[in-house]
């Protein structure tokens, strides 16, 4: 048998072909993402779900309409594109004036909605889709036997990519598109209908995803989850390539697919993480990405974020005292296990919110810290017999260290790139936990002993454990209040408010962000570790990307940048999950809906809205009493 460097040539070329196919999907998907990002300045998180939708349209039209593969290649992009256009026209178009992060959150909600919908209808087992007859069989290429269908996929995607590139680079419409990407206002003054251009771009971008979905249908089984894992890899591809050039994203997509294929032959354990490793390396060496252009400073409008709560330290003690009093009696009315779970998520959400609310940094990878910590505390408590306080400490230290590694890389990029990088690196942590022996893979670490606090207090009863969790919650909450209202917190608020100005005053903005990241990761770790002890379980769910999404949702619905908001949000979402657990995928659908509604009409969240009303009321009555105050003191009504 022919070998190359001791590797059988057939295996090598087989994996290369597989890599090329994956690369084809990366290329088409990142191409669509780049197109959309260029015009809309939005990272389309729903891209994976739209890819999956394309595959489903193929399967559905075959099953119910009897329309075959070739029809599907035409029909699926059309359907996905039209649905995309409807989404853009009715909802997405309202977000362009806001911080880019809201676009990410909205499309994340859309992806949950689509995914939940198909899961509810068709389950997760996957539907087979046959290769069209004309493309069955294979070619013997001497060194390998290549299925014709796979060659077709590679060829078709190369043609599509080149076609899109030519259309954007060589046609008049493409010229408008490129011009509008650079300066939409100017292009509008030329009499070109930019909103239509934007809508078209989104439609075409997601139609490409639908097309890729049809191509993928005969290779992978058609199932509702086929897009969500893929999209995270595609995000990494986009970070590596940079979204500056179309050809760049195509080349990067194929290249990384091949690299992944090669890794499968040489060192299979790393094949699922190699792209993320490349991303980390590129971030260290060339943060803007291989083909990217750095978009200058970070001076982006910050109009969407809830203003962080500051300067009312005097009134802070009261809500906390009330809160703790309520929690102290709660287990006599409510099931303590539920309360413990909700409190742990409340800690987690508070830790997450520390970063977005006070640093303006949207991490989409916080599950990595929560999940890793829950494994560490579960393992040290079960295998090494650590006391609870010690296992939580160990877990917090580990997640703090992990936070330093991930944060150090992620803060090298701004805005949505930051979010994509945290998501991708967290996915790497997920794969690590999936493969590392100490986590027990799919089984997780079960029946974790709660142990004796300081070796003295037995925590095995739910009531005792509950009060321990409550104490941990109070500790985390107070730590956050302290950090926010410290000299360091002051600098953070300056960096968040106006980063270039803070730099011009001598503050190394990135060091403050880095520290904030490590704090947030550490506290998320405390939450995860406490959860593992309270529920006596550490599992892959804790470290999966959907957990990162959940914590974003909790903070968003409670109110980003408010101290109490994440607590309210955590109880709301945990309660919702508890209540809806029997309805399966409805949880996902409803979470998606909540995301969408929050982003569209309810950006201040529950606590933010209440604070907004009460401060408006106070201002109004204050004005009545004091008569005319200074100047034109406006009733500040941030965009609701």
């Amino acid at each position, binding site marked *: 048998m022919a070998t190359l460097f001791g590797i059988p040539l057939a295996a090598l070329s087989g994996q290369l072909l597989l890599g090329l196919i994956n690369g084809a999907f990366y290329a088409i998907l990142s191409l669509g993402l780049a197109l959309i990002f260029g015009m809309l300045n939005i990272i389309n998180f729903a891209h994976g779900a739209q890819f999956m939708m394309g595959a489903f349209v193929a399967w559905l039209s075959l099953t119910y309409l009897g329309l075959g593969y070739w029809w599907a290649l035409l029909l699926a992009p059309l359907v996905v594109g039209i649905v995309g256009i409807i989404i853009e026209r009715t909802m997405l178009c309202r977000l362009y004036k806001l911080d880019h992060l809201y676009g990410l959150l909205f499309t994340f909600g859309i992806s949950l909605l689509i995914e939940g919908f198909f899961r509810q209808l068709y389950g997760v087992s996957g539907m087979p889709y046959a290769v069209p007859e004309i493309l069955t069989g294979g070619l013997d290429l001497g060194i390998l036997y290549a299925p014709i269908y796979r060659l077709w996929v590679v060829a078709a995607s190369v043609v599509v990519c080149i076609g899109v590139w030519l259309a954007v680079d060589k046609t008049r419409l493409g010229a408008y598109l490129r011009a509008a990407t650079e300066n939409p206002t100017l292009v509008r003054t030329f009499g070109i209908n930019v909103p239509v251009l934007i809508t078209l771009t989104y439609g075409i971008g997601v139609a490409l995803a639908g097309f890729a979905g049809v191509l993928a249908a005969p290779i992978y089984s058609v199932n509702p989850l086929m897009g969500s894992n893929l999209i995270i890899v595609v995000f990494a591809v986009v970070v590596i390539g940079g979204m500056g050039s179309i050809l760049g994203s195509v080349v990067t997509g194929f290249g990384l697919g091949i690299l992944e294929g090669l890794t499968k032959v040489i060192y299979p354990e790393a094949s699922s993480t190699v792209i993320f490793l490349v991303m980390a390396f590129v971030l260290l060496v060339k943060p803007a990405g291989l083909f990217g252009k750095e978009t200058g*400073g970070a001076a982006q409008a910050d109009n969407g974020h809830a*203003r*962080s709560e*500051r300067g009312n*330290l005097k009134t802070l003690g009261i809500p906390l005292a009330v809160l703790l009093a309520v929690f102290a009696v709660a287990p006599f009315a409510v099931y303590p296990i539920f309360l413990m779970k909700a409190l742990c998520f409340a800690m987690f959400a508070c830790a997450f919110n520390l970063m977005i609310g006070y640093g303006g940094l949207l991490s989409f990878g916080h599950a990595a810290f929560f999940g890793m910590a829950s494994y560490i505390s579960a393992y040290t408590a079960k295998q090494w017999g650590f006391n609870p306080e010690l296992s939580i400490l160990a877990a917090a230290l580990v997640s703090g260290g992990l936070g330093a590694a991930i944060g150090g890389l992620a803060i090298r990029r701004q805005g949505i790139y930051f979010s994509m990088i945290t998501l991708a690196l967290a996915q790497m942590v997920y794969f690590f936990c999936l493969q590392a022996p100490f986590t027990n893979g799919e089984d997780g670490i079960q029946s974790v002993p709660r142990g004796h606090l300081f070796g003295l207090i037995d925590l095995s009863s739910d009531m005792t454990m509950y009060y321990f969790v409550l104490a941990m919650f109070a500790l985390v909450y107070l730590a956050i209040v*302290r*950090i926010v*209202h*410290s*000299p*360091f*917190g*002051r*600098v953070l*608020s*300056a960096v968040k*408010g*106006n980063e*270039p*100005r*803070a*730099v*011009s*005053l*001598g*503050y*190394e*903005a990135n*060091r*403050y962000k880095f*520290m904030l990241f490590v*704090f947030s990761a550490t506290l998320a770790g405390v939450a995860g570790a406490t959860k593992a002890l309270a529920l006596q379980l550490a599992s892959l769910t804790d470290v999966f990307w959907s957990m990162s999404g959940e914590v974003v949702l909790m903070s968003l619905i409670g109110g980003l940048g408010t101290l109490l908001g994440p607590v309210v949000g955590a109880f709301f979402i945990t309660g919702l999950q508890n209540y809806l657990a029997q309805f399966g995928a409805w949880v996902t659908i409803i979470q998606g809906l909540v995301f969408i509604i929050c982003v569209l009409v309810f950006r201040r969240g529950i606590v933010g809205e209440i604070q907004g009303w009460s401060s408006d009321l106070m201002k109004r009555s204050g004005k009545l009493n004091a008569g005319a105050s*200074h*100047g034109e*003191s*406006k009733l500040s009504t941030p965009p609701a």
Partner: protein
Amino acid sequence: MSAGIVLQAKGLTKEFRGFKAVDDVDLSVERGSIHALIGPNGAGKTTCFNLLTRFLPLTRGSILFNGRDISALSAAHVARLGLVRSFQISSTFPQLSCIENVAIALQARGGNSFNFWSSERRLDGDLPRARELVDMVGLGAFADVAAGDLPYGRKRALEIATTLALEPEVMLLDEPMAGMAHGDIDQIVALIQKIRVGRTILMVEHNLHVVAELSDRITVLTRGQVLVEGSYQEISRHPAVIEAYMGGVDA
């Protein structure tokens, strides 16, 4: 290097994808002077500022501040050394009050900035000085108003107070009069004359009356290059300047 030179740029060059925004500029700023950088739009004035304060990486050239090469330092580091800039578009911390804006700058000097374990009340010692600075720029009545709610001219004044809080050796003011009404301009001119004592000011300014009134020395840039340098009398008579700059203004 002359003892009188506080800031010196040699062969300052910045290329954006082949376009030379700043092309081999030499600049020497005398200690204690007010030095103006003028020129038509697109001459590279603000890019020069961004290079000098390290907000943009250099393509070529070197920058000496008090004889020390700062061309590889970070923007924040340069600021801590005493070379502090303002921005063309007023740049404040919109959610903080005037006093808090200035206090943030005072805190930068205090070395308390990574302290996350004590209360921010530890910084209250800065408040009297912050109030003093806010009063000095005529914002006493607005001390507790959020910077974002100030009228434009007041924001510029606040920005100067914030910059002053750092006691910078060299202040770089990027178009301090941009978009201001006449009354406000007189106020800022008076303010600049007040604060120049004991420090050096390098400013980009379009308003030639202001430049004539304030500057000891003027460098004229066009198309990224130094056209001429001298006093206002010298440059205002220079034919190339009249051609490239004044002519455009008078027309």
